[in-house]
């Protein structure tokens, strides 16, 4: 409770993490100080207590900053510039220095002294940063948040993707339950999360308190019934249509009637998976990328029956996770794999025709297109069998020869040279 916390800047920031703006109220003269002070700035009394302040205010003055400091001193948060800085006056009297969000950064003339603004919190690796946005936008967002309140999430499968997704959800402040069929898999997944979060503490990106809070939001279970009170369920089981259909049919019986069931499939048909349920309108594709805690993109796939409401709820939810959404109407390979697989295939064809060496192809694509890694290195990373599966699937779905896997790729898969996981692919990883 507020009253029990010592009056300190640390407590103030912990309150911000709970999305509360807490100042001190002087019991002698009723003056409010923000951030909190142990000695009232007006009458110098030490008889002060916590006071939660309004989250609406007006802009007292502002600027639009083009040359910023480094993330080092911004609670690890990389301020995009130009960005707005403002002093906001709260109705109770005190003013506070904050970042402004939701205004067009290229048009400082659109911001005015006196504009009403509402608190909005920016999650950073070191906790919440207090920011304010135009009140009009905040009201809109609040309406959406009220309509689609998500309190609990379930993730089916504690593999690499499942564990990663659960971690992202927990980091956003939402409770999550992870289920798997075997204790061995479940423990492995939970340990992966723990290691990742602990490493963030070691690197100084988050505090131990924050790490404990994140881990405290994650629950593991071997019983699928544990998902019964979840608002959103994300299935991250192996890529097998029959398995997924079985899970969705079970989930349909267990989940709340209005729960949304998403699948993290990277290629299978959402429409077909949804057909295993009596609520295909509540089924959607939520495709995270590996490693989920780091990769910013989520492809949101709309199946044949997915409703607008489901789609919008999940879209808002994914944004809340700090991810960027790419909207996709269901089609084989969605966006990323549809374009990536033929690109990798073309790179392998070029290699096979002797256009350039593997290193040459990768260097050219890296430096020529500013890709972080070349297509052949990436193929080794993904696994050549997976690449081949995707190509075969695209070819089968479209029937277009442009998706046909090249012979070298097939040969390498047959030879068991699958990339990093077998220590040999286009490159040798045995050393």
């Amino acid at each position, binding site marked *: 409770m507020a009253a029990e916390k010592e009056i300190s800047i640390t407590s103030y920031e912990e309150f911000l993490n709970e999305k509360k703006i807490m100042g001190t109220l002087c019991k002698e003269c009723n003056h409010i100080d923000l951030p909190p002070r142990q000695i009232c700035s007006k009458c110098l009394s030490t008889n002060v207590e916590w006071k939660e302040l309004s989250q609406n205010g007006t802009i007292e003055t502002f*600027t639009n900053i083009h040359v910023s400091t480094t993330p080092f001193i911004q609670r690890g948060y990389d301020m995009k510039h130009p960005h707005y800085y403002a002093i906001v006056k709260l109705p109770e009297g005190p003013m506070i220095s904050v970042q402004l969000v939701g205004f067009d950064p290229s048009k400082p003339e659109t911001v005015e002294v006196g504009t009403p603004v509402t608190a909005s919190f920016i999650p950073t690796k070191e906790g919440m940063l207090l920011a304010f946005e135009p009140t009009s936008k905040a009201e809109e967002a609040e309406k959406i948040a009220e309509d689609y309140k998500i309190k609990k999430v379930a993730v089916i499968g504690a593999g690499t993707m499942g564990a990663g997704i659960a971690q992202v959800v927990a980091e956003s402040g939402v409770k999550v339950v992870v289920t798997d069929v075997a204790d061995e898999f479940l423990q492995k997944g939970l340990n992966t999360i723990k290691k990742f979060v602990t490493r963030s503490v070691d690197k100084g990106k988050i505090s131990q308190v924050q790490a404990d809070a994140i881990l405290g939001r994650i629950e593991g279970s071997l019983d699928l019934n544990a998902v019964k009170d979840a608002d959103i369920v994300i299935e991250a089981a192996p890529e097998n249509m029959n398995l997924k259909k079985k899970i969705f049919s079970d989930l349909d019986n267990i989940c709340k009637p209005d729960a949304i069931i998403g699948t993290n499939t990277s290629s299978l048909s959402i429409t077909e998976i949804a057909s295993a349920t009596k609520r295909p309108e509540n089924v959607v594709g939520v495709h995270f990328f590996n490693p989920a805690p780091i990769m910013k993109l989520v492809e949101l796939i709309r199946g044949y029956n997915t409703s607008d409401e489901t789609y919008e709820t999940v879209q808002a939810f994914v944004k809340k996770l700090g991810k960027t959404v790419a909207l996709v109407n269901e089609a084989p390979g969605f966006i990323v794999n549809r374009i990536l697989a033929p690109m990798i295939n073309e790179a392998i064809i070029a290699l096979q025709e002797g256009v350039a060496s593997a290193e040459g192809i990768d260097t050219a694509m890296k430096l020529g297109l500013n890709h972080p890694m070349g297509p052949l290195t990436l193929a080794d990373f993904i696994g050549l069998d997976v690449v081949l599966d995707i190509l075969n699937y695209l070819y089968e779905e479209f029937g277009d020869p442009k998706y046909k896997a090249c012979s070298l790729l097939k040969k390498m898969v047959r030879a068991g040279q699958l990339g990093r996981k077998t220590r040999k692919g286009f490159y040798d990883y045995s050393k």
Partner: protein
Amino acid sequence: MGKLLRNVAVVGAGVSNFGNFPRKTNRELWVEAFLDAKNSVDNGIDQKDVEALFLGNYSSDLFEKQGHLAPLMADLVGLAPKAALKIEDACASSGVALRMGVLAIASGMYDVVCVGGTEKMNTLSTAEVTDVLASASDKHTEIFGGSTFPGLYAAIATAHMAKYGTTPEMLMAYSIKAHNNGALNPKAQMPLTVTEIMSRRIRRAKEKGISIPLWADEYEFLKSNYNPMIAYPLRLFDCSLITDGASCVFLAAEEVAKRYTDTPIWIIGSGQGSDTFALDDRTTMTSLNAARVASQQAYKMAGLGPQDIQIAEVHDCFSIAEIIAIEDLGFFEQGTGGKVTQEGRTALDGEMPINTSGGLKTKGHPVGATGVAQAVEIFKQLRGEAEKRQVPDVEIGLTHNVGGTGGTAVVHIYRR
């Protein structure tokens, strides 16, 4: 209260060259300033006469990773084993050091002291320098709110514009005036007028064969992309420079001052104030209360008022800072600082010449050295030694040195 127990004079004053010197550290900058000041003493001064060093420096530890600066600087100029101490009050460090030197002599503790300031800033990238400077503002509110020093002064500018109708053109008039003065100061970092900078840009563009617009006047240039926005409404030419430099003065008690010179410059007023640390805790954002408090103390001690001051070096870390400074010091009415600047009333030939040295804008702003560098300019002006930028027949001058966004302000009044 509010009195010096004996009179204190400046008997020598000097500065290093100001600029970006990749091959100089605080050591060389300081020795250069010390020797310049030593050579300025009419009858000479010996290191053995000096009883203590008061050194202003903001952050040699962050800029250069060299701490414990005062004994190091004392040692390099032969002042050891005399007392040496460093004073840190952000950009007001050496202004406060000067005040401490004055108090030390007035108290009777010392007869002769050396007061200096030094800052080596061009060791880091601009973003990292911004980090170091930002640490002089409130970490938990202003910095986490995304602000920077230019950002905080920009917020002051926005408030001043909203309240008094100050315009970007008024800020530009400040910048043009600052460059006109700086062009006459051989030690300045950027001794060029805005017109000269414009013709350089045109020449460079012609050499490169890129087309550039023809600017009708300085204002058109200052509104163009050649003067990029730093923090709205402040552009590049509204901001002071990142400077390597040092400054030094010798102070002497009245009993011994005549030994060193026949024309000592007396420090007749000294004041210092503080304020709520964060800008957002202030009742006004268009005035620095610390500066008002400091100037009132100094005026009272000197028995003078703003109307008696003939020349002033004020802390123009940003254009808006000079505008509010000349209001806070009582030279002009609250809210009219921008207007009078545009009317030329603060120019070298105006009724109240401000920052004849070129100010922090063109002379440069080695933060810890600035306060004493201001005193050096007033020393030269009052002794008629300011060469091309000399204001004729000035007897009384003032310096105004601000730390942070006015968490600290220190004002001194000088008389020939």
